């Protein structure tokens, strides 16, 4: 319950306050969001399987976001930023779909 409320509160805060992201960080925002979605789906699946631990969720979320942004940052420095961003999105996308399938199986038994 608390996470759901937090999520909604975050969306509202984001829309109302409109915090401006520094220009330097802007390219990494979409990647960070994909990483966050991956962590969310992973956490939900773990929750359904009864292995959810909030400590691991917090740590995995933060590290995923930072690592994804760092990969793209390093890629930008050596000139393959968009390719590495694609790689990150592909890998995280596969994980999201696999986790979503597991969640669907767990929820609807289908």
């Amino acid at each position: 319950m608390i996470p759901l409320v937090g999520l909604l509160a975050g969306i509202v805060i984001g829309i109302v306050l409109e915090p401006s992201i520094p220009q330097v960080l802007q390219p990494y925002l979409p990647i960070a969001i994909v990483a966050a979605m991956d962590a969310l789906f992973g956490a939900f699946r773990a929750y359904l399987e009864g292995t959810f631990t909030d400590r691991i969720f917090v740590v995995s979320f933060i590290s995923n976001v930072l690592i994804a942004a760092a990969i793209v940052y390093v890629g930008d420095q050596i000139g393959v930023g968009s390719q590495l961003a694609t790689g990150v999105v592909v890998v995280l996308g596969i994980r999201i779909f696999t986790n979503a399938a597991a969640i669907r199986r767990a929820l609807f038994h289908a």
Partner: protein
Amino acid sequence: MDLLNQIIRQPMDPDYAFAAVGNESPQGRWKLGVLAMIIGALFAVAALQTTRAAPALQSERSELISRVQTAEREQDELRGRVTSLTEDIATLRTAALGDDDAARLVEAQISTLDPVVGNTAVTGPGVLIVVDDSPSAAADARDRVLDIDLQVLANGLWEGGAEAISINGHRLSNLTAIRSAGDAITVDYRSLTRPYRVEAIGDVRTLQARFVESSAGAWWNDLAQNRRMRYEISDVKQLDLAADPGIVLRHAGRAAS
């Protein structure tokens, strides 16, 4: 492949499996809530920024378009000046040549060569060829008219005995480049808009037949039949072709007398 398999087999963080089950503390719950809030804010900010950026990009684009248009207008003006200066040069040349037999010979030579190289506007009967992309060009890029197609067309017309050619009002000389730049075909670095009207002045009795029989005619027949491009060729009683403003006086000297 092994890498992809590994990603699919282990989509969750492996730590979840190792960690002790159910060690949720109220403090952890709050951490979770804060994190969820951050995630929500991330989503909202990213979505807002993308929607904000759209009109900015649009205005940037229209700004660029208006700049291009201004530059093109300036270019037109400059071309107009070139034309009037060329006329001045011709007047000055006539004055400088004087009025003796040698001068008249040179004048005659100039007036024969001028229309051929595209230095003066010419009028006369000729052939009009209208070509355009095929209706399915949006689906298949190969159905579009390319720069090489226009090059072949122009060369075929020269081969067929054309004395002067212009494409969409741009007179061709032997210095004219027909190239593609981005999505458009340019003649003398001015982009063309479809459809392409190629006008050629020449002997009406033979020009069309000789063009159709040439390799360029075969090339365009093929494009029209297999790619269904528009390709219309017709005789015209009178065509008015402007001079090529790209031709400039590069060298001038006193004739040895």
